[in-house]
């Protein structure tokens, strides 16, 4: 593919401290602590206060928690996505290589935080819901396990996933003028698991009270879960550009300018770079 190449003679190197784990450590650490505390709360109050939807205790311990978390999630999502959008870079075509590499690192930490949140929601809390349903009779769609799984763990990973996508689209030339198919699938498909809760709960309310996990009613979750595989394509898009930036900044090798990447982002995904990386 035709590329205009520029050779740098002296490229500024970002300090190694720019590639710190700190922000992801804080974010994932906070999520883990939060998840542990939520588990403790569930152990304390699910079986003691969460078995009768009509009781005052249920209202206090579970419905108030549901309303509080939904409000907080909406505010957090709006604030984070809005802030990312409002502070977007309007001069991406003049982005320096060092700054671009630093932003890819920030994006990588955003993505790894998203995948932890997705693991917690789709793997841990989803199967935990199975544990709960095998132990109690389903009396409400807002049963304690659902308050945590559906209405808490799923929105959390959606907030991080969409946030990472908005970050990429507002701060990186590769994603600024074109939609990345794998990245949109990686974020959008698991995000659709949350709306699919509507189908699930309607189905369980209308015709299927049991919790046979392999019931076709649950297969919407399955289909949307497949989108997690698109992390492969997402990294295949990102890694060649990161490798090119490293080669440019540290070894002075030629690289496409940000303006060229914005114009034709496909050209920045050289498959040969993957092989070079593996070697």
């Amino acid at each position, binding site marked *: 593919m035709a590329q205009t190449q520029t050779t740098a003679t002296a490229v500024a*190197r970002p300090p*190694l401290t720019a*590639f710190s*784990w700190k922000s992801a450590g804080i974010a994932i650490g906070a999520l883990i602590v939060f998840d542990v505390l939520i588990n403790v709360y569930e152990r304390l109050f699910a079986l003691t206060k969460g078995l009768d939807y009509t009781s005052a205790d249920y209202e206090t311990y579970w419905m108030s928690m549901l309303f509080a978390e939904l409000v907080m999630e909406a505010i957090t999502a709006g604030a984070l996505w809005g802030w990312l959008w409002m502070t977007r870079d309007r001069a991406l075509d003049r982005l320096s290589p060092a700054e671009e*590499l630093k932003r890819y*690192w920030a994006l990588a930490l955003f993505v*790894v935080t998203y*995948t932890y949140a*997705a*693991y917690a*929601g*789709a*793997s*841990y809390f*989803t199967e*935990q819901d*199975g*544990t709960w*349903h*095998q132990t*109690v*009779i389903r009396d409400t769609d807002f049963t304690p396990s659902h308050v945590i799984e559906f209405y808490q763990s799923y929105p959390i990973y959606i907030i991080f996933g969409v946030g990472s996508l908005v970050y990429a689209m507002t701060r990186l030339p590769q994603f600024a*003028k*074109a*939609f*990345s*198919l*794998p990245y949109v*699938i*990686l974020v959008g498909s*698991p995000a659709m698991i949350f709306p699919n809760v509507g189908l699930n709960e309607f189905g369980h309310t209308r015709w299927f009270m*049991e*919790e*046979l*996990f*392999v019931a076709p009613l649950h*297969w919407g979750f399955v289909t949307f*879960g497949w*989108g*997690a*595989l*698109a*992390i*492969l*394509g997402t*990294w*295949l*898009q990102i890694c060649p550009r*990161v490798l090119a930036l*490293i*080669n440019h*900044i*540290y070894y002075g090798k030629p690289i496409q300018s940000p303006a060229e990447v914005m*114009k034709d982002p*496909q050209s920045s995904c050289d*498959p040969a770079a*993957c*092989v070079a*990386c*593996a070697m």
Partner: protein
Amino acid sequence: MQYSQVDAEAKAVARKFDVVVLLSTFLALIAGFHVHQMLVAGDWSFWVDWKDRNWWPIVAPIMEITFPAAVQAVLWTRFRMPIGATLCCLGLLFGEWMNRYINFNGWTHYPLNFVFPETFIPAAVVLDIVLMLTGNWIVTALVGGELWGWLFYPTNWVMIAPFHLPVEYQGSLMSVADVINYMYVRTSTPEYLRIVETGTMRSFAGGVTGVAAFFSAFVSVCMYVPWWLMGAHFFGSTKFFKTYESASTEVKHA
């Protein structure tokens, strides 16, 4: 000296990106594969009495060759890394054990020998080895897919054999697994939903597992192909779609 310092910095940055890529990929695969597995074959995975000789060797392998095939398609064709299936199945096992130990056992007190998950690690290693040795995904589908279906039951047999021993319980002949099921009530999976040892395949008597594995291997081959293709051309795609404003004038007019 100066070059070596720059070189070291470059390598340090690259290694950090490597770690993030590997960690996030592993976590995403756990999330996607586990939610897939628990909702298409989960009941057989949750309970030892569901781990029968009839349906479990069919349902579990054919539904779980999916992610391994897709991940193999990317890791092999792009990186020549024959670890796609093993990586997936390791992640799945991690996700399953986290919940079985902490919740099924730690929270609701089902005994672990009632709720331990199946393993696909041995079959996954074989699937990866077939791909590595042949370097051909069609052959891997045909040979590896067959082995995937055939190997599942034998490689799990050591774990489940003690639970298939016959016992007499209140005048009825049952397996140990059935007695455990009888003792630990599953509120939302009543007996009429249990898909165990049903259908006329039971007429094969002692040969039922072989027939189930034979069928399972056949479907595994068939499942491997579309999932490899989806991995290679959809989930592993590097396609971008341009926004309207950045499209060329010709495209806009068209």
